[in-house]
């Protein structure tokens, strides 16, 4: 009996390790392919964007959240539902700007960076930049143009990982020509 219980916990841990290791292999390969960190960051962001535009469909299908009425609701849904569903963590939301269009997501632990260390020659690599792309792509599909960037990173020695999200504008649906 206890052996079975062990297996259950192990397999859950393993599937997160599978993801972490796969992501690590991806970043390593990108670092080999592109000479400088900036290009790797851009590529991670682009890949994240592609993932985000498809992930949002899965998210909306499984989470049953309704339309968000403002950016604060969006922030809540991202932190409490989306991150929990896909990465098993619940970041906290802080540092709202006075205009209510910027906030920070604070991740105490980032599953992408388990067992990861940045070597010295890659100090400007934003290792988890895929997450920024995912957030950007997913929100674009629900008519929000946002900017996401890392301002603190545990890999670089900071205490927590912080993603700053900024609302740029609402994307209006473009009607096809002739359908006014």
């Amino acid at each position: 009996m206890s052996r079975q219980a062990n297996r259950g916990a192990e397999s859950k841990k393993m599937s997160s390790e599978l993801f972490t290791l796969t992501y690590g292999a991806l970043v390593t390969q990108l670092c080999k392919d592109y000479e400088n960190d900036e290009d790797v960051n851009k590529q991670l962001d682009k890949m994240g964007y592609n993932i985000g535009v498809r992930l949002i469909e899965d998210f909306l299908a499984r989470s049953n959240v309704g339309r968000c009425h403002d950016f604060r609701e969006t922030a809540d849904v991202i932190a409490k539902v989306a991150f929990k569903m896909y990465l098993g963590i619940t970041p906290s939301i802080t540092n709202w700007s006075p205009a209510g269009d910027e906030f920070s997501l604070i991740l105490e632990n980032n599953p992408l960076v388990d067992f990861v260390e940045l070597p010295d020659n890659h100090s400007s690599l934003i290792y988890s930049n895929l997450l920024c792309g995912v957030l950007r792509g997913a929100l674009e599909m629900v008519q929000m143009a946002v900017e996401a960037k890392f301002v603190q990173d545990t890999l670089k020695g900071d205490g927590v990982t912080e993603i700053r999200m900024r609302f740029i504008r609402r994307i209006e649906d473009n009607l096809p020509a002739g359908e006014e």
Partner: protein
Amino acid sequence: MADEALFLLLHNEMVSGVYKSAEQGEVENGRCITKLENMGFRVGQGLIERFTKDTARFKDELDIMKFICKDFWTTVFKKQIDNLRTNHQGIYVLQDNKFRLLTQMSSGKQYLEHASKPTGTAEVHPSQETAEKHEDILATSTVDSCLCW
């Protein structure tokens, strides 16, 4: 704990990224497949290291293959290998009737029309696949990376 949907999308993106950034001739000469294989190799090594920390040493090749087909496959793909065949001379054929990395593509006609047609046994590695026929994947696996243990 990472959700399966996220992993599947990441995997899709990795395969598509490698092929998109392939230079002239790389697709034909198999460089893309090699890149994906190398990534898969690193992942496999890392997983096995952690997974077999506390298990007993494997007695022989068949033991290793059984471990791969049952425990390892269950952990990574949430199911066991459906069929294992061997010629007892170092070749093992692992058959998975519902390969998780491909079920999203293989369960409808939309993508199958573009999938390559089978000519024989296809090599399948955890990081890259070629769909053979509807939900039926044959994998040939050599035991090299497991024999380190």
